[in-house]
């Protein structure tokens, strides 16, 4: 049966094994890979011709300790479910990616990050412990910084290759409100962006920027800087789960082209310039998850799918960011969801985690030969700048680029479970 990743590329076929209860044993007759909600963009959550262990039904909570905020639950619990249960009690996710439709296990396997990286690090920094099921021998191991520590660090950002995470303990964050007080500030070039980032590092837990990939008449990239903190007004409202707004089918492949993206960017920028201001109150849902409001937004890229590309450039080489934008401009291949953020100093714990100190840029492009060529060029720039590309979003990087980004990969392989594999792993090895 087919299961796809969020980018709808590549297309793969695999056996699906639904896990309704924690399994007693793992199958070993075929390669296996855990699959949560499939929100990785590329092929790191796929296992062509193999088996996917579908974990979404392992979605039971086990325990919650209100004195420490530690939540123990099965690995298929979604971030949305955690929010619905715990926001009313004054708790929030310690770190959240741009969608709430991911599982706890998936968040560990990709060591996801959020708008508060500069303040609190990655998801992995808030994982107290997890249980990991391995095949040779068939056993369940408890992993934390003191017990099976190496396996613990290999599994954070380990792409599901070190075993099946059965359950995990995550330390939630105490909040005084479910609302965010945010500032929206327009910037006209990257210098202004860096200045805003620097001055917002201290007083703001969350910051992120949208940037227009197309240069304006002054050959500069404008954008909007968002920063904020949780309010303290003691209002605790959850979002309403709704599936009303959705892209019902794949739009034609050419829907997003240089013209429509430019038009969108202009509209987006002007709308936000109009709304810009400080101390604006907004719900956590619209602050953290604006795209979740449109279900299946990935279908606007058409049936052939799209590439996400997220890289991080160390701050010493931040000039390379200009080169990236120049290259994108040359190709006339704009991305309408370009996100820019400065990662802070906190070192990632996971062996294969993506975040390092630097500036990170996320883009998406429809799958076509032109995009492939552009992304190869971008890889050249990122390699030269000693940066790296996020595996969770990748569907095309070369083996050479991968090894340049992740030289620790050979060491990581020592912790891989022999029965586990993925389309991504086979592509780059």
């Amino acid at each position, binding site marked *: *049966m087919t299961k796809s990743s969020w980018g709808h590329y590549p297309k793969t076929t695999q056996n699906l094994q639904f896990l*309704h*209860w924690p399994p007693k044993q793992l199958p070993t007759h075929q390669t296996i890979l855990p699959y949560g909600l499939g929100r990785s963009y590329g092929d790191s959550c796929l296992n062509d011709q193999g088996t996917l262990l579908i974990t979404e039904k392992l979605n*039971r*909570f*086990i*325990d919650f300790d209100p004195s420490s905020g530690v939540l123990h639950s099965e690995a298929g619990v979604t971030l949305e479910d955690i929010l619905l*249960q715990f926001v009313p009690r004054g708790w929030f996710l310690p770190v959240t990616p741009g969608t709430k439709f991911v599982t706890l296990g998936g968040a560990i396997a990709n060591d996801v990050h959020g708008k508060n990286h500069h303040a609190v690090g990655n998801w992995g920094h808030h994982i107290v412990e997890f249980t990991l099921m391995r095949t040779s021998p068939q056993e369940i191991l408890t992993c934390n910084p003191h017990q099976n520590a190496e396996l613990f660090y290999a599994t954070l950002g380990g792409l599901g290759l070190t075993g099946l995470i059965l359950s995990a303990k995550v330390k939630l964050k105490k909040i005084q409100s479910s609302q965010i007080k945010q500032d929206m500030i327009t910037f006209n070039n990257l210098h202004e962006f860096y200045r805003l980032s620097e001055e917002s590092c201290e007083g703001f837990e969350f910051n992120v920027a949208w940037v227009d990939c197309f240069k304006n008449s002054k050959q500069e990239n404008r954008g909007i800087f968002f920063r904020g903190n949780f309010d303290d007004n003691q209002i605790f409202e959850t979002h309403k789960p709704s599936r009303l707004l959705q892209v019902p089918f794949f739009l034609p492949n050419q829907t997003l082209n240089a013209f429509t993206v430019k038009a969108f960017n202009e509209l987006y920028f002007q709308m936000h310039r109009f709304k810009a201001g400080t101390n604006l109150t907004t719900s956590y849902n619209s602050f953290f998850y604006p795209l979740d409001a449109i279900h299946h937004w990935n279908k606007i890229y058409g049936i052939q799918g799209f590439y996400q590309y997220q890289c991080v450039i160390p701050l010493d080489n931040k000039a390379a960011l200009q080169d990236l934008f120049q290259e994108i401009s040359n190709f006339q291949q704009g991305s309408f969801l370009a996100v820019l953020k400065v990662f802070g100093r906190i070192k990632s714990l996971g062996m294969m985690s993506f975040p390092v100190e630097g500036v990170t840029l996320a883009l998406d492009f429809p799958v076509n030969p032109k995009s492939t060529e552009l992304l190869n060029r971008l890889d050249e720039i990122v390699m030269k700048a000693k940066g790296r590309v996020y595996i969770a979003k990748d569907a095309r990087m070369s083996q050479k680029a991968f090894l340049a980004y992740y030289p620790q990969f050979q060491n990581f392989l020592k912790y891989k479970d022999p029965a586990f594999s993925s389309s991504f792993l086979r592509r780059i090895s």
Partner: protein
Amino acid sequence: MKKILIIGATSAIAQAFCKRSLHNAQNDFYLIGRNAEQLELIANDLKVRGAQNVFVEAADLNTFEQHEKLIEKAQNCLKNFDWVLVAHGVLGDQKSAEHNSHQTLEIIHSNYTSQATLLNCIADKMEKMGSGVIGVLSSVAGDRGRRSNYIYGSAKAAITTFLSGLRVRLFKSNVQVLTIKMGFVDTPMTAQFSKGPLWTKPETIAMELVSLFENKKNGEYYLPFFWRYIMLVIRLLPSFIFNKMNFL
């Protein structure tokens, strides 16, 4: 706060029902199911989600003699039953059961006989309590026998008939009886089928089910609602056409 008795608590729909019932309330649960380990996992989950007290009891429901004691014990713990959901059942293997009386009986016991004797015990208690809602998961398969599952279907037809009588008996005692005729639901019981547009998630069923309980509905309900019309057509099909339909 409701006191809820669930029979067949490890079924996907029962699990989703319990979760959903906790949306705006802190209920007490008494969970009866086959597997003690799985019941424990569900109980922990419900407690984190805000349940007050959760009692579990592992039992083989095809041991009919135990039914009276089982319900007695549940009543001792919960004192009274606001809601009762009977959710256990098996699909069985129709093909092999056609030539195996043991398997045929197993399907009938799991989907009808055990429900009937349990419901007798529950009805006695609730008649005295003078309030509450009993919901039983039946199936559209009981509306007309089909080649692919008529043993299962006949048991579902029997429970539907049983419930229509029970509803009349309990009417004077102010106890509502809900017969839920479900269409295709994506659960472990139907794991081997490929899923099309008519399939529904257990969470969707649970949402509608909880609202039927909350509104103290009485009667037969199709879930999702459109199965009422599908089954109307299927029941009206003349035999000479129905008998030739291979996909049924």
